[in-house]
């Protein structure tokens, strides 16, 4: 079967986001069938059989997650759609929401029918104002056409969808942080268990799914679990949106089968490393992933292959760095991010991210010591697995891999009085500078 694009097929058409365009191309047919013809359990089994894995970062099997929600409960159940898209290097869900918002809504209807949910909240990051407006217009249209609300698409099913804007916090992309934020609180993650499927939003059973994950559902119903399972590798199949940014000729979102090779993605789809330069490093799955050296980039972009390579597919945010990049500066940039975004609840994360930034900073400005490289590893060891959520891990993974895989850059910065960029800006500096970047 040849590969068919399901998210981006029509994105160059001017009216691709409109309801009429969507319906003309078969839109809402699968939602209609799921509401009228499908039994909830059969929907869950089909999504399990298709082996759809979550597209937000963790790669958890979607049907299995749905199956954790208690069937007989007096409490309402909720769907919280994760549209926070805050992982650096990731910009795929924005594309779906801006260009194909009804595809997301159709996926939401199918999920809600499967799990017996009557209210879905879409948590969209606050910065995405344009996408939020597009999505709200799509929701309003869907209500006025009887697609949402009471008697969805002529069935006896009721479904409300509420768009909820965040306000700028990376941690709200973490599922329990997002639920705290939806409840009107600071976006601080909560201890698991209880897992959201049992006790989530407002203390009720909650499914948390990513935008791209849900947008797969109409296609799974259309072609069936078996055919879907044959797209890409067996253990993590399906069409996938890959985001490529950084030092490439043509950055962008590319829809390809899961398991495409990283080299092909960079060289053919993203136009190769820019300015005819050589590749130095790649972050394959958002900035929380372990970095790959150029000689480690012969790897396929799927969950198992990247795990075997010691990193992760994550959110499929591929950040490419060319030979001129100083990895000390890259480390400082990434650590500043995590330190800024740590919610501060857990000591290993609040203090650890601060220390990692501080160490990277002093190496970058020529105040580093050779022991600092081992100190980074030591700090990372004290962070991983020791906190409520995975933000500490997300900072430690790039930190330890950058320092250990690019030691030569760190040695040079320590010996030469700072990173090349720092020395260029401060030619007289020989280290020990009092001013800061």
């Amino acid at each position: 079967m040849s590969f068919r694009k399901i998210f981006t097929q029509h994105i160059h058409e001017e009216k691709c986001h409109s309801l009429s365009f969507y319906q003309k191309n078969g839109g809402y047919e699968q939602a209609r069938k799921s509401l009228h013809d499908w039994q909830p359990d059969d929907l869950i089994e089909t999504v399990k059989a298709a082996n759809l894995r979550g597209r937000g970062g963790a790669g958890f099997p979607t049907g299995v997650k749905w199956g954790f929600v208690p069937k007989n409960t007096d409490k309402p159940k909720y769907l919280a759609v994760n549209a926070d898209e805050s992982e650096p290097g990731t910009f795929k869900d924005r594309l779906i929401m801006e260009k194909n918002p009804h595809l997301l809504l159709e996926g939401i209807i199918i999920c809600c029918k499967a799990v017996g949910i009557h209210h879905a909240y879409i948590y969209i990051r606050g910065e995405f104002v344009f996408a939020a407006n597009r999505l709200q217009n799509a929701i309003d249209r869907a209500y006025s056409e009887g697609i949402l609300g009471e008697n969805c698409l002529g069935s006896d099913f009721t479904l409300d969808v509420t768009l909820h804007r965040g306000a700028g916090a990376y941690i709200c992309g973490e599922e329990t942080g997002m639920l705290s934020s939806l409840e009107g609180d600071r976006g601080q993650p909560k201890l698991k268990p209880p897992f959201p499927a049992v006790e989530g939003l407002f203390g009720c059973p909650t499914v948390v799914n990513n935008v791209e994950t849900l947008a797969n559902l109409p296609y799974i119903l259309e072609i069936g679990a078996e055919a879907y399972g044959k797209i890409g590798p067996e253990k993590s199949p399906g069409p996938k949106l890959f985001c490529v940014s950084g030092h490439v000729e043509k950055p962008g979102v590319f829809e390809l089968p899961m398991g495409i090779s990283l080299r092909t993605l960079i060289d053919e789809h993203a136009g190769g490393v820019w300015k005819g330069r050589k590749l130095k490093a790649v972050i394959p799955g958002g900035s929380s992933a372990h970095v790959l050296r150029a000689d480690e980039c012969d790897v396929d972009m799927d969950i198992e292959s990247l795990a075997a390579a010691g990193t992760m597919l994550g959110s499929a945010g591929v950040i490419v760095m060319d030979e001129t990049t100083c990895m000390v500066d890259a480390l400082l940039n990434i650590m500043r991010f995590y330190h800024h975004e740590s919610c501060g609840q857990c000591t290993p994360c609040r203090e650890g991210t601060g220390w990692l930034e501080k160490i990277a900073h002093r190496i970058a400005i020529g105040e580093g010591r050779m022991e600092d490289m081992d100190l980074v590893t030591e700090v990372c060891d004290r962070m991983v697995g020791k906190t409520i959520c995975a933000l500490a891990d997300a900072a430690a993974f790039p930190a330890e891999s950058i320092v250990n895989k690019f030691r030569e850059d760190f040695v040079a910065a320590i010996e030469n009085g700072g990173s090349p960029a720092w020395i260029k800006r401060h030619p007289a500096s020989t280290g020990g500078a009092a001013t800061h970047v």
Partner: protein
Amino acid sequence: MTETLAFSSEAMKKYEWLLTRYPTRQAALLPTLRIAESEFGELGVPQMRYVADLMEIPPALVFGVVTFYTHYRRAGVGTYHLQVCSTLSCALRGAGDVVQRITERLGIGTGETSECGLFTLSKVECLGSCDTAPVIQCNDDYHEGLSLEDVDALIQQLRDEAGKGSA
């Protein structure tokens, strides 16, 4: 001062609709703060107090929420909030130069507001538009794939828009 603040009837209608969308009142806090932001132009202490009174939730909780997030429009921010994405993908494609250019053109550093009150410069974290780096979010709008000339043009355009002419 708090007495002088009040939602317009249209804003109040929006707020009341919001309350119907959530099983708890507090869940409507984030969107209500967005209404307050657009009604009052900024979220300073009086505006936060107003929202706390309106929603009958403790002011400390409202302050805690507003200050946890970076994207609310806080008191003292200029007419145009130039938020330069400084995370890795943008940094690799010249975000640092964009910040420097704005500093040169406007004479303000990061976190500062120009004397005319028109511009505030901030470095922000990933805006989720890495393929069009470097990116500035000015108030609600994204300006993407910026060259240094584009930065100059943007500043000029905003000055013209504000009707104050070029300085």
